Protein backbone atom coordinates (compact mmCIF):
# COMPACT_ATOMS: atom_id res chain seq x y z
CA UNK A 1 0.00 0.00 0.00
CA UNK A 2 1.40 3.40 -0.86
CA UNK A 3 1.95 5.75 2.05
CA UNK A 4 0.64 8.80 0.33
CA UNK A 5 -1.24 9.45 -2.88
CA UNK A 6 -2.50 12.74 -4.18
CA UNK A 7 -4.42 13.27 -7.35
CA UNK A 8 -4.48 16.70 -9.02
CA UNK A 9 -4.40 18.33 -5.61
CA UNK A 10 -5.01 22.05 -5.91
CA UNK A 11 -5.26 24.79 -3.30
CA UNK A 12 -6.04 28.36 -4.25
CA UNK A 13 -6.43 31.34 -1.98
CA UNK A 14 -8.73 33.71 -3.82
CA UNK A 15 -8.01 33.92 -7.51
CA UNK A 16 -4.52 35.35 -7.14
CA UNK A 17 -2.60 32.84 -5.05
CA UNK A 18 -2.16 29.21 -6.03
CA UNK A 19 -0.41 27.31 -3.25
CA UNK A 20 -0.75 23.87 -4.85
CA UNK A 21 -1.26 23.37 -8.55
CA UNK A 22 -2.57 19.96 -9.65
CA UNK A 23 -0.05 18.09 -7.54
CA UNK A 24 -0.09 14.34 -8.12
CA UNK A 25 2.14 12.19 -5.94
CA UNK A 26 2.52 8.51 -5.19
CA UNK A 27 4.94 7.71 -2.40
CA UNK A 28 5.86 4.48 -0.66
CA UNK A 29 6.60 4.35 3.07
CA UNK A 30 10.01 5.57 4.09
CA UNK A 31 11.63 8.73 5.26
CA UNK A 32 10.57 11.30 2.75
CA UNK A 33 12.02 14.75 2.41
CA UNK A 34 9.86 17.54 1.10
CA UNK A 35 11.92 20.33 -0.36
CA UNK A 36 11.12 23.63 -1.94
CA UNK A 37 11.66 27.33 -1.50
CA UNK A 38 9.55 29.27 0.97
CA UNK A 39 6.04 29.46 -0.43
CA UNK A 40 6.53 26.44 -2.67
CA UNK A 41 3.57 24.70 -1.04
CA UNK A 42 5.24 22.35 1.46
CA UNK A 43 3.22 23.43 4.48
CA UNK A 44 0.04 23.61 2.43
CA UNK A 45 0.48 20.00 1.34
CA UNK A 46 1.10 18.84 4.91
CA UNK A 47 -1.91 20.75 6.21
CA UNK A 48 -4.19 19.27 3.57
CA UNK A 49 -3.00 15.78 4.48
CA UNK A 50 -3.83 16.55 8.12
CA UNK A 51 -7.26 17.94 7.30
CA UNK A 52 -6.28 21.34 8.72
CA UNK A 53 -7.20 23.01 5.45
CA UNK A 54 -9.42 21.77 2.66
CA UNK A 55 -8.11 21.54 -0.89
CA UNK A 56 -9.82 23.57 -3.59
CA UNK A 57 -9.98 20.45 -5.75
CA UNK A 58 -8.38 17.06 -6.12
CA UNK A 59 -8.07 14.21 -3.65
CA UNK A 60 -5.50 12.73 -1.31
CA UNK A 61 -5.10 9.54 0.65
CA UNK A 62 -2.67 8.90 3.49
CA UNK A 63 -2.14 5.35 4.82
CA UNK A 64 -5.01 4.39 2.53
CA UNK A 65 -7.49 6.73 4.27
CA UNK A 66 -9.20 9.52 2.39
CA UNK A 67 -7.97 12.67 4.12
CA UNK A 68 -11.25 14.51 3.53
CA UNK A 69 -13.75 11.84 4.46
CA UNK A 70 -11.91 9.68 7.00
CA UNK A 71 -10.07 12.36 8.96
CA UNK A 72 -10.62 11.23 12.57
CA UNK A 73 -9.88 7.54 11.82
CA UNK A 74 -6.79 8.44 9.82
CA UNK A 75 -5.43 10.89 12.36
CA UNK A 76 -5.30 8.27 15.12
CA UNK A 77 -2.25 7.05 13.20
CA UNK A 78 -0.71 10.39 12.27
CA UNK A 79 1.68 12.58 14.21
CA UNK A 80 2.17 16.23 13.31
CA UNK A 81 4.91 18.57 14.35
CA UNK A 82 4.08 22.09 13.16
CA UNK A 83 6.63 24.67 12.18
CA UNK A 84 5.29 27.29 14.58
CA UNK A 85 5.07 27.43 18.37
CA UNK A 86 2.12 25.37 19.53
CA UNK A 87 2.64 24.64 23.23
CA UNK A 88 0.54 26.03 26.08
CA UNK A 89 2.91 27.85 28.39
CA UNK A 90 1.26 27.04 31.69
CA UNK A 91 1.15 23.25 31.51
CA UNK A 92 3.90 20.78 32.24
CA UNK A 93 5.28 18.78 29.33
CA UNK A 94 4.04 15.58 30.97
CA UNK A 95 0.46 16.78 31.39
CA UNK A 96 0.35 18.22 27.91
CA UNK A 97 1.79 15.26 26.04
CA UNK A 98 -0.42 12.82 27.99
CA UNK A 99 -3.47 14.91 27.11
CA UNK A 100 -2.50 14.98 23.45
CA UNK A 101 -2.06 11.19 23.48
CA UNK A 102 -5.62 10.84 24.73
CA UNK A 103 -6.92 13.19 22.04
CA UNK A 104 -5.28 10.80 19.58
CA UNK A 105 -7.39 8.01 21.07
CA UNK A 106 -5.09 6.36 23.62
CA UNK A 107 -6.64 5.24 26.92
CA UNK A 108 -5.65 7.28 29.95
CA UNK A 109 -3.19 4.86 31.53
CA UNK A 110 -1.53 4.01 28.24
CA UNK A 111 -1.27 7.73 27.51
CA UNK A 112 0.59 8.36 30.75
CA UNK A 113 2.95 5.42 30.33
CA UNK A 114 3.81 6.30 26.78
CA UNK A 115 4.29 9.95 27.70
CA UNK A 116 7.07 9.02 30.11
CA UNK A 117 8.72 6.77 27.51
CA UNK A 118 8.40 9.24 24.69
CA UNK A 119 9.72 12.22 26.63
CA UNK A 120 12.71 10.10 27.61
CA UNK A 121 13.18 9.11 23.99
CA UNK A 122 13.36 12.74 22.89
CA UNK A 123 15.76 13.51 25.74
CA UNK A 124 13.57 15.41 28.19
CA UNK A 125 14.11 14.33 31.76
CA UNK A 126 13.44 16.23 35.00
CA UNK A 127 12.28 19.29 33.09
CA UNK A 128 9.16 17.48 32.04
CA UNK A 129 7.51 18.25 35.38
CA UNK A 130 8.00 21.99 34.94
CA UNK A 131 5.69 24.44 33.22
CA UNK A 132 6.74 24.87 29.59
CA UNK A 133 6.95 28.67 29.79
CA UNK A 134 10.59 28.45 30.83
CA UNK A 135 11.68 26.02 28.12
CA UNK A 136 14.43 26.80 25.62
CA UNK A 137 13.72 26.50 21.91
CA UNK A 138 15.47 23.15 21.87
CA UNK A 139 13.31 21.80 24.68
CA UNK A 140 10.15 23.07 23.02
CA UNK A 141 11.12 21.33 19.79
CA UNK A 142 11.58 18.11 21.73
CA UNK A 143 8.13 18.41 23.29
CA UNK A 144 6.68 19.13 19.86
CA UNK A 145 8.31 15.98 18.53
CA UNK A 146 7.14 14.01 21.57
CA UNK A 147 3.49 15.00 21.13
CA UNK A 148 3.74 13.89 17.49
CA UNK A 149 5.18 10.55 18.53
CA UNK A 150 3.44 9.70 21.80
CA UNK A 151 0.54 7.80 20.25
CA UNK A 152 2.90 5.69 18.12
CA UNK A 153 1.75 6.96 14.74
CA UNK A 154 2.29 5.07 11.51
CA UNK A 155 3.35 8.28 9.83
CA UNK A 156 4.73 11.53 11.16
CA UNK A 157 4.50 14.81 9.28
CA UNK A 158 7.25 17.15 10.38
CA UNK A 159 7.19 20.75 9.21
CA UNK A 160 10.69 22.22 9.41
CA UNK A 161 11.61 20.31 12.58
CA UNK A 162 14.97 22.05 13.00
CA UNK A 163 13.53 25.54 12.80
CA UNK A 164 15.21 27.90 15.24
CA UNK A 165 17.69 25.36 16.61
CA UNK A 166 21.38 25.97 17.04
CA UNK A 167 23.76 23.65 15.15
CA UNK A 168 24.08 21.18 18.04
CA UNK A 169 20.33 21.09 18.59
CA UNK A 170 19.85 20.67 14.86
CA UNK A 171 22.12 17.64 14.83
CA UNK A 172 20.31 16.05 17.74
CA UNK A 173 16.90 16.66 16.23
CA UNK A 174 17.95 15.19 12.88
CA UNK A 175 19.43 12.21 14.67
CA UNK A 176 16.18 11.67 16.57
CA UNK A 177 14.14 11.91 13.40
CA UNK A 178 16.47 9.57 11.60
CA UNK A 179 16.39 6.98 14.40
CA UNK A 180 12.63 7.19 14.66
CA UNK A 181 12.28 6.49 10.98
CA UNK A 182 15.01 3.90 10.64
CA UNK A 183 14.73 1.95 13.91
CA UNK A 184 11.02 2.03 14.56
CA UNK A 185 9.78 1.89 11.00
CA UNK A 186 7.57 4.94 11.34
CA UNK A 187 7.10 6.61 7.97
CA UNK A 188 8.15 10.23 7.99
CA UNK A 189 7.39 13.12 5.71
CA UNK A 190 9.69 15.97 6.65
CA UNK A 191 9.75 19.37 5.04
CA UNK A 192 12.81 21.53 5.01
CA UNK A 193 14.39 24.18 2.91
CA UNK A 194 17.83 22.96 3.91
CA UNK A 195 18.94 20.24 1.55
CA UNK A 196 21.77 19.11 3.75
CA UNK A 197 19.28 18.07 6.41
CA UNK A 198 17.16 16.12 3.98
CA UNK A 199 20.24 14.40 2.61
CA UNK A 200 21.24 13.25 6.11
CA UNK A 201 17.89 11.90 7.16
CA UNK A 202 15.75 10.94 4.21
CA UNK A 203 15.79 8.14 1.69
CA UNK A 204 13.36 9.70 -0.75
CA UNK A 205 13.13 13.27 -1.91
CA UNK A 206 10.19 15.21 -3.29
CA UNK A 207 10.97 18.60 -4.76
CA UNK A 208 8.11 21.02 -5.26
CA UNK A 209 8.18 24.51 -6.66
CA UNK A 210 5.31 26.91 -7.14
CA UNK A 211 2.90 24.24 -6.00
CA UNK A 212 3.96 21.79 -8.68
CA UNK A 213 5.96 18.60 -8.51
CA UNK A 214 9.48 19.20 -9.76
CA UNK A 215 10.92 15.78 -9.06
CA UNK A 216 10.29 12.75 -6.87
CA UNK A 217 13.04 10.13 -6.57
CA UNK A 218 15.17 8.13 -4.21
CA UNK A 219 17.89 10.25 -2.65
CA UNK A 220 20.52 7.99 -4.24
CA UNK A 221 19.49 8.97 -7.75
CA UNK A 222 19.72 12.64 -6.87
CA UNK A 223 23.22 12.32 -5.56
CA UNK A 224 24.57 9.96 -8.21
CA UNK A 225 28.17 10.59 -8.98
CA UNK A 226 28.82 12.73 -11.98
CA UNK A 227 31.18 11.41 -14.55
CA UNK A 228 33.91 13.87 -13.80
CA UNK A 229 37.34 13.36 -12.22
CA UNK A 230 38.90 16.22 -10.35
CA UNK A 231 42.69 16.02 -10.30
CA UNK A 232 44.69 18.37 -8.14
CA UNK A 233 48.43 18.74 -8.72
CA UNK A 234 51.08 20.71 -6.82
CA UNK A 235 52.27 22.72 -9.82
CA UNK A 236 52.59 22.69 -13.60
CA UNK A 237 48.89 22.07 -14.05
CA UNK A 238 49.04 23.44 -17.59
CA UNK A 239 51.69 20.93 -18.63
CA UNK A 240 49.79 18.01 -17.19
CA UNK A 241 46.65 19.23 -18.95
CA UNK A 242 48.45 19.48 -22.27
CA UNK A 243 49.87 15.98 -21.90
CA UNK A 244 46.46 14.51 -21.14
CA UNK A 245 44.87 16.30 -24.07
CA UNK A 246 47.54 14.79 -26.31
CA UNK A 247 46.32 11.40 -25.16
CA UNK A 248 42.78 12.26 -26.24
CA UNK A 249 41.15 13.24 -22.92
CA UNK A 250 38.87 16.23 -22.42
CA UNK A 251 40.43 18.45 -19.80
CA UNK A 252 39.41 21.71 -18.24
CA UNK A 253 41.77 23.67 -16.02
CA UNK A 254 40.50 25.29 -12.83
CA UNK A 255 43.63 26.71 -11.24
CA UNK A 256 45.60 23.74 -9.97
CA UNK A 257 42.63 21.44 -10.42
CA UNK A 258 41.94 19.65 -13.67
CA UNK A 259 38.48 18.39 -14.51
CA UNK A 260 38.56 15.33 -16.70
CA UNK A 261 35.69 13.56 -18.39
CA UNK A 262 35.45 9.97 -17.25
CA UNK A 263 34.03 7.51 -19.77
CA UNK A 264 36.06 4.46 -18.75
CA UNK A 265 39.01 3.55 -16.51
CA UNK A 266 41.62 4.73 -18.99
CA UNK A 267 42.21 8.22 -17.49
CA UNK A 268 43.48 6.86 -14.17
CA UNK A 269 46.56 5.28 -15.79
CA UNK A 270 47.13 8.23 -18.08
CA UNK A 271 47.06 10.66 -15.16
CA UNK A 272 49.52 8.53 -13.20
CA UNK A 273 51.91 8.34 -16.15
CA UNK A 274 51.60 12.06 -16.85
CA UNK A 275 52.47 13.22 -13.33
CA UNK A 276 55.38 10.79 -13.10
CA UNK A 277 56.79 11.89 -16.47
CA UNK A 278 56.47 15.59 -15.69
CA UNK A 279 57.57 15.08 -12.08
CA UNK A 280 54.90 17.02 -10.20
CA UNK A 281 53.24 16.02 -6.94
CA UNK A 282 49.75 14.64 -7.17
CA UNK A 283 47.59 15.99 -4.36
CA UNK A 284 44.43 14.05 -5.00
CA UNK A 285 42.14 12.43 -7.51
CA UNK A 286 38.44 12.34 -6.75
CA UNK A 287 35.18 11.66 -8.47
CA UNK A 288 33.08 14.76 -8.21
CA UNK A 289 30.04 13.93 -6.10
CA UNK A 290 26.98 15.90 -6.96
CA UNK A 291 25.34 17.19 -3.80
CA UNK A 292 21.70 18.15 -3.54
CA UNK A 293 22.75 21.75 -3.42
CA UNK A 294 23.97 21.44 -7.01
CA UNK A 295 20.44 20.63 -8.15
CA UNK A 296 19.30 24.08 -7.26
CA UNK A 297 22.35 25.86 -8.65
CA UNK A 298 22.70 26.52 -12.34
CA UNK A 299 25.31 24.04 -13.59
CA UNK A 300 28.70 25.45 -14.41
CA UNK A 301 28.85 25.30 -18.19
CA UNK A 302 32.34 23.86 -18.58
CA UNK A 303 31.72 21.03 -16.14
CA UNK A 304 28.61 19.86 -17.91
CA UNK A 305 30.46 20.17 -21.21
CA UNK A 306 33.07 17.78 -19.97
CA UNK A 307 30.55 15.30 -18.69
CA UNK A 308 28.33 15.53 -21.72
CA UNK A 309 30.24 13.40 -24.15
Amino acid at each position, binding site marked *: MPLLETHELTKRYGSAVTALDSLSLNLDPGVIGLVGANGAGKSTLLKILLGLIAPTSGSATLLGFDVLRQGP*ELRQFVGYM*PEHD*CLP*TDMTATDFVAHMAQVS*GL*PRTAARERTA*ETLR*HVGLFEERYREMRGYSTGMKQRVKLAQALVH*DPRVMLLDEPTNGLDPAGRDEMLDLVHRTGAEFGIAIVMSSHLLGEIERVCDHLVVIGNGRLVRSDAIATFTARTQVLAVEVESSADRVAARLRDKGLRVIEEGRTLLIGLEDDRPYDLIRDAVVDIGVGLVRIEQRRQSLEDLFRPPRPEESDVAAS
Partner: protein
Amino acid sequence: MSQPAEHVAGNIYDLGYQRYGGVRLGRRHAVLAVYVQSLRSAFGLGRRTSSKIIPMGLAIVVLIPASIQLGIAAIAPGDVELIKFENYLGFVEIILALFCAAVAPELLGRDQRTNTLSLYFSRALLRRDYALAKFGALVSAMLVVTLGPLVLLFAGNALGSDDSLDYLKNNADQVLPIVASTAMLSIFFASLGLAVAAQTPRRAFATGGVLALFVVSSSFVSIMVNAASEDYSRYLPLVSPFHLVRGFTFFFFQASFQSGTGGVGGDLYIVDLPGAVYALATLGITAVAAALLLRRYERIAA
Protein backbone atom coordinates in the same frame (compact mmCIF):
# COMPACT_ATOMS: atom_id res chain seq x y z
CA MET B 1 22.70 -4.22 40.56
CA SER B 2 26.17 -2.88 41.33
CA GLN B 3 26.32 -0.80 38.16
CA PRO B 4 27.02 2.89 38.67
CA ALA B 5 23.92 5.08 38.54
CA GLU B 6 24.90 6.80 35.31
CA HIS B 7 25.20 3.53 33.52
CA VAL B 8 21.73 2.48 34.63
CA ALA B 9 20.28 5.79 33.49
CA GLY B 10 21.94 5.21 30.12
CA ASN B 11 20.20 1.87 29.78
CA ILE B 12 16.85 3.43 30.50
CA TYR B 13 17.49 6.06 27.88
CA ASP B 14 18.26 3.40 25.31
CA LEU B 15 15.06 1.51 26.10
CA GLY B 16 13.17 4.74 25.44
CA TYR B 17 10.76 4.38 22.63
CA GLN B 18 8.61 1.33 22.05
CA ARG B 19 5.82 0.56 19.62
CA TYR B 20 2.28 0.58 20.96
CA GLY B 21 0.08 -2.44 20.34
CA GLY B 22 -2.83 -1.54 22.61
CA VAL B 23 -6.31 -0.31 21.81
CA ARG B 24 -7.05 2.97 20.12
CA LEU B 25 -10.36 4.41 21.25
CA GLY B 26 -10.84 6.93 18.48
CA ARG B 27 -13.03 9.95 18.15
CA ARG B 28 -15.37 9.54 21.12
CA HIS B 29 -12.46 9.13 23.49
CA ALA B 30 -10.72 12.13 21.93
CA VAL B 31 -13.78 14.33 22.47
CA LEU B 32 -14.13 13.06 26.03
CA ALA B 33 -10.48 13.88 26.70
CA VAL B 34 -10.96 17.46 25.51
CA TYR B 35 -14.13 17.74 27.62
CA VAL B 36 -12.48 16.50 30.81
CA GLN B 37 -9.37 18.59 30.29
CA SER B 38 -11.49 21.69 29.64
CA LEU B 39 -13.74 21.13 32.65
CA ARG B 40 -10.65 20.82 34.84
CA SER B 41 -9.08 23.94 33.44
CA ALA B 42 -12.39 25.83 33.92
CA PHE B 43 -11.62 25.68 37.63
CA GLY B 44 -7.86 26.00 37.14
CA LEU B 45 -7.16 22.39 38.06
CA GLY B 46 -3.82 21.19 36.74
CA ARG B 47 -2.77 24.81 36.32
CA ARG B 48 -0.85 27.19 38.52
CA THR B 49 -2.52 28.58 41.63
CA SER B 50 -3.26 31.97 40.09
CA SER B 51 -5.52 30.30 37.52
CA LYS B 52 -7.61 28.80 40.30
CA ILE B 53 -8.31 31.98 42.26
CA ILE B 54 -11.04 33.55 40.13
CA PRO B 55 -13.13 30.50 39.20
CA MET B 56 -12.79 28.86 42.61
CA GLY B 57 -13.47 32.17 44.35
CA LEU B 58 -16.63 32.79 42.36
CA ALA B 59 -17.76 29.21 42.88
CA ILE B 60 -17.49 29.81 46.63
CA VAL B 61 -19.07 33.27 46.59
CA VAL B 62 -22.12 31.89 44.82
CA LEU B 63 -22.67 29.58 47.77
CA ILE B 64 -22.70 32.38 50.36
CA PRO B 65 -26.43 33.23 50.21
CA ALA B 66 -27.32 29.57 50.65
CA SER B 67 -24.90 29.26 53.54
CA ILE B 68 -26.38 32.31 55.29
CA GLN B 69 -29.86 30.89 54.92
CA LEU B 70 -28.67 27.61 56.37
CA GLY B 71 -26.88 29.34 59.23
CA ILE B 72 -30.00 31.23 60.21
CA ALA B 73 -32.16 28.14 59.88
CA ALA B 74 -29.80 26.30 62.17
CA ILE B 75 -29.93 28.99 64.85
CA ALA B 76 -33.57 30.06 64.59
CA PRO B 77 -35.96 27.19 64.90
CA GLY B 78 -39.00 27.08 62.64
CA ASP B 79 -39.33 28.06 59.03
CA VAL B 80 -37.40 31.21 58.33
CA GLU B 81 -37.16 31.24 54.57
CA LEU B 82 -35.02 34.17 53.50
CA ILE B 83 -34.43 33.01 49.96
CA LYS B 84 -36.86 31.04 47.89
CA PHE B 85 -35.51 28.68 45.26
CA GLU B 86 -36.95 30.72 42.39
CA ASN B 87 -35.16 33.85 43.59
CA TYR B 88 -31.70 32.35 44.08
CA LEU B 89 -30.45 32.46 40.50
CA GLY B 90 -31.59 36.07 40.12
CA PHE B 91 -29.90 36.90 43.39
CA VAL B 92 -26.50 35.66 42.19
CA GLU B 93 -26.91 36.44 38.49
CA ILE B 94 -24.02 38.89 38.40
CA ILE B 95 -21.72 36.31 39.96
CA LEU B 96 -22.83 33.73 37.39
CA ALA B 97 -22.17 36.26 34.63
CA LEU B 98 -18.70 36.96 36.04
CA PHE B 99 -17.96 33.25 36.19
CA CYS B 100 -19.05 32.79 32.59
CA ALA B 101 -17.05 35.83 31.45
CA ALA B 102 -13.94 34.56 33.24
CA VAL B 103 -14.11 30.93 32.19
CA ALA B 104 -15.30 31.08 28.55
CA PRO B 105 -12.18 32.94 27.35
CA GLU B 106 -10.06 30.57 29.42
CA LEU B 107 -11.51 27.59 27.57
CA LEU B 108 -11.19 28.99 24.06
CA GLY B 109 -8.58 31.74 24.11
CA ARG B 110 -5.62 29.75 25.38
CA ASP B 111 -5.58 27.29 22.49
CA GLN B 112 -5.95 30.17 20.04
CA ARG B 113 -3.20 32.24 21.63
CA THR B 114 -0.71 29.41 21.79
CA ASN B 115 -1.58 27.96 18.34
CA THR B 116 -2.48 24.66 19.93
CA LEU B 117 -5.55 24.34 17.72
CA SER B 118 -3.47 22.86 14.92
CA LEU B 119 -2.47 20.03 17.27
CA TYR B 120 -6.08 19.35 18.22
CA PHE B 121 -7.44 19.51 14.69
CA SER B 122 -4.73 17.16 13.42
CA ARG B 123 -5.88 14.49 15.89
CA ALA B 124 -8.74 12.02 16.08
CA LEU B 125 -11.56 14.56 16.11
CA LEU B 126 -13.33 17.12 13.96
CA ARG B 127 -13.40 20.86 14.45
CA ARG B 128 -17.01 20.75 15.57
CA ASP B 129 -16.17 17.99 18.06
CA TYR B 130 -13.66 20.30 19.66
CA ALA B 131 -16.17 23.15 19.87
CA LEU B 132 -18.88 20.88 21.30
CA ALA B 133 -16.49 19.44 23.88
CA LYS B 134 -15.71 22.99 25.02
CA PHE B 135 -19.42 23.79 25.08
CA GLY B 136 -20.13 20.71 27.17
CA ALA B 137 -17.32 21.62 29.54
CA LEU B 138 -18.62 25.15 30.14
CA VAL B 139 -22.20 23.88 30.57
CA SER B 140 -20.93 21.46 33.21
CA ALA B 141 -18.88 24.14 34.94
CA MET B 142 -21.90 26.47 34.96
CA LEU B 143 -24.00 23.66 36.41
CA VAL B 144 -21.57 23.37 39.29
CA VAL B 145 -22.14 27.02 40.22
CA THR B 146 -25.90 27.05 39.58
CA LEU B 147 -27.15 23.66 40.65
CA GLY B 148 -24.60 23.43 43.46
CA PRO B 149 -25.99 26.22 45.66
CA LEU B 150 -29.59 25.13 45.12
CA VAL B 151 -28.78 21.57 46.09
CA LEU B 152 -27.01 22.93 49.16
CA LEU B 153 -30.03 25.05 50.01
CA PHE B 154 -32.44 22.19 49.49
CA ALA B 155 -30.43 19.70 51.49
CA GLY B 156 -29.76 22.24 54.23
CA ASN B 157 -33.41 23.18 54.51
CA ALA B 158 -34.33 19.52 54.76
CA LEU B 159 -31.76 18.82 57.46
CA GLY B 160 -32.58 21.98 59.37
CA SER B 161 -36.32 21.50 59.44
CA ASP B 162 -38.02 19.69 62.31
CA ASP B 163 -39.03 16.78 60.14
CA SER B 164 -36.63 16.22 57.24
CA LEU B 165 -38.75 13.59 55.59
CA ASP B 166 -41.75 15.86 55.77
CA TYR B 167 -39.76 18.69 54.17
CA LEU B 168 -38.70 16.45 51.29
CA LYS B 169 -42.27 15.32 50.76
CA ASN B 170 -43.63 18.87 50.76
CA ASN B 171 -40.93 20.24 48.50
CA ALA B 172 -40.59 17.38 46.03
CA ASP B 173 -42.32 19.52 43.43
CA GLN B 174 -39.39 21.96 43.60
CA VAL B 175 -36.88 19.46 42.24
CA LEU B 176 -37.92 19.58 38.62
CA PRO B 177 -37.99 23.40 38.42
CA ILE B 178 -34.59 23.55 40.12
CA VAL B 179 -33.05 21.18 37.60
CA ALA B 180 -34.81 22.74 34.61
CA SER B 181 -33.93 26.34 35.46
CA THR B 182 -30.29 25.66 36.33
CA ALA B 183 -29.82 23.48 33.26
CA MET B 184 -31.35 26.07 30.98
CA LEU B 185 -29.31 28.87 32.51
CA SER B 186 -26.11 26.85 32.18
CA ILE B 187 -26.66 26.01 28.53
CA PHE B 188 -27.79 29.54 27.77
CA PHE B 189 -24.88 31.33 29.46
CA ALA B 190 -22.37 28.84 28.08
CA SER B 191 -23.54 29.38 24.50
CA LEU B 192 -23.41 33.17 24.88
CA GLY B 193 -20.04 33.20 26.61
CA LEU B 194 -18.40 30.90 24.08
CA ALA B 195 -19.94 32.60 21.04
CA VAL B 196 -18.39 35.89 22.17
CA ALA B 197 -15.11 34.45 23.45
CA ALA B 198 -14.55 32.48 20.23
CA GLN B 199 -14.22 35.69 18.27
CA THR B 200 -10.95 36.82 19.83
CA PRO B 201 -7.86 35.19 21.32
CA ARG B 202 -7.38 38.25 23.53
CA ARG B 203 -8.57 37.39 26.97
CA ALA B 204 -9.36 40.91 28.15
CA PHE B 205 -11.50 41.62 25.10
CA ALA B 206 -13.36 38.36 25.44
CA THR B 207 -14.09 38.81 29.14
CA GLY B 208 -15.13 42.41 28.63
CA GLY B 209 -17.32 41.43 25.69
CA VAL B 210 -19.16 38.73 27.61
CA LEU B 211 -19.71 40.96 30.63
CA ALA B 212 -20.87 43.84 28.46
CA LEU B 213 -23.36 41.56 26.75
CA PHE B 214 -24.97 40.72 30.09
CA VAL B 215 -24.76 44.04 31.90
CA VAL B 216 -25.32 46.52 29.08
CA SER B 217 -28.30 44.67 27.67
CA SER B 218 -29.85 44.36 31.11
CA SER B 219 -29.40 48.03 32.01
CA PHE B 220 -30.64 49.17 28.61
CA VAL B 221 -33.76 47.01 28.83
CA SER B 222 -34.54 48.16 32.38
CA ILE B 223 -34.35 51.80 31.39
CA MET B 224 -36.44 51.34 28.26
CA VAL B 225 -39.10 49.25 29.95
CA ASN B 226 -39.60 51.80 32.70
CA ALA B 227 -39.36 54.90 30.52
CA ALA B 228 -40.99 54.01 27.25
CA SER B 229 -44.64 53.27 26.98
CA GLU B 230 -44.51 52.12 23.37
CA ASP B 231 -45.84 48.71 22.69
CA TYR B 232 -42.54 47.26 21.36
CA SER B 233 -40.79 47.88 24.68
CA ARG B 234 -42.89 45.06 26.06
CA TYR B 235 -40.73 42.61 24.13
CA LEU B 236 -37.38 44.18 24.98
CA PRO B 237 -36.68 41.82 27.92
CA LEU B 238 -36.31 39.08 25.34
CA VAL B 239 -32.89 40.46 24.37
CA SER B 240 -31.50 40.66 27.90
CA PRO B 241 -30.05 37.44 29.36
CA PHE B 242 -30.73 38.49 32.95
CA HIS B 243 -34.37 39.22 32.16
CA LEU B 244 -34.74 35.96 30.29
CA VAL B 245 -33.25 33.95 33.14
CA ARG B 246 -35.63 35.51 35.64
CA GLY B 247 -38.47 34.98 33.22
CA PHE B 248 -37.98 31.29 32.55
CA THR B 249 -37.04 30.54 36.16
CA PHE B 250 -40.34 31.96 37.41
CA PHE B 251 -42.07 30.12 34.59
CA PHE B 252 -40.58 26.79 35.70
CA PHE B 253 -41.44 27.46 39.35
CA GLN B 254 -44.84 28.81 38.32
CA ALA B 255 -44.19 31.89 40.42
CA SER B 256 -45.50 35.34 39.63
CA PHE B 257 -43.82 38.73 39.71
CA GLN B 258 -44.77 41.32 42.28
CA SER B 259 -45.23 44.99 41.55
CA GLY B 260 -42.93 47.57 43.05
CA THR B 261 -40.03 45.17 43.63
CA GLY B 262 -37.85 47.06 41.15
CA GLY B 263 -34.96 45.58 39.19
CA VAL B 264 -35.37 42.75 36.74
CA GLY B 265 -38.40 41.27 38.52
CA GLY B 266 -40.13 44.64 38.48
CA ASP B 267 -39.44 45.05 34.76
CA LEU B 268 -41.00 41.68 34.05
CA TYR B 269 -44.06 42.59 36.16
CA ILE B 270 -44.51 45.67 33.97
CA VAL B 271 -44.26 43.91 30.61
CA ASP B 272 -46.32 40.94 31.83
CA LEU B 273 -45.44 38.43 29.08
CA PRO B 274 -46.50 34.79 29.31
CA GLY B 275 -43.72 32.80 31.00
CA ALA B 276 -43.30 30.32 28.16
CA VAL B 277 -42.18 33.17 25.90
CA TYR B 278 -39.03 33.61 27.98
CA ALA B 279 -38.20 29.94 27.73
CA LEU B 280 -38.75 29.90 23.98
CA ALA B 281 -36.73 33.08 23.40
CA THR B 282 -33.91 31.59 25.47
CA LEU B 283 -33.89 28.43 23.40
CA GLY B 284 -33.84 30.48 20.21
CA ILE B 285 -30.92 32.66 21.30
CA THR B 286 -29.03 29.60 22.57
CA ALA B 287 -29.40 27.92 19.18
CA VAL B 288 -28.12 31.01 17.37
CA ALA B 289 -25.16 31.41 19.72
CA ALA B 290 -24.22 27.73 19.43
CA ALA B 291 -24.42 27.99 15.64
CA LEU B 292 -22.11 31.04 15.74
CA LEU B 293 -19.63 29.10 17.86
CA LEU B 294 -19.62 26.10 15.52
CA ARG B 295 -19.36 28.29 12.45
CA ARG B 296 -16.40 30.14 13.93
CA TYR B 297 -14.61 26.86 14.60
CA GLU B 298 -15.27 25.52 11.11
CA ARG B 299 -13.46 28.56 9.74
CA ILE B 300 -10.81 29.44 12.28
CA ALA B 301 -7.29 29.12 10.89
CA ALA B 302 -5.19 26.33 12.35
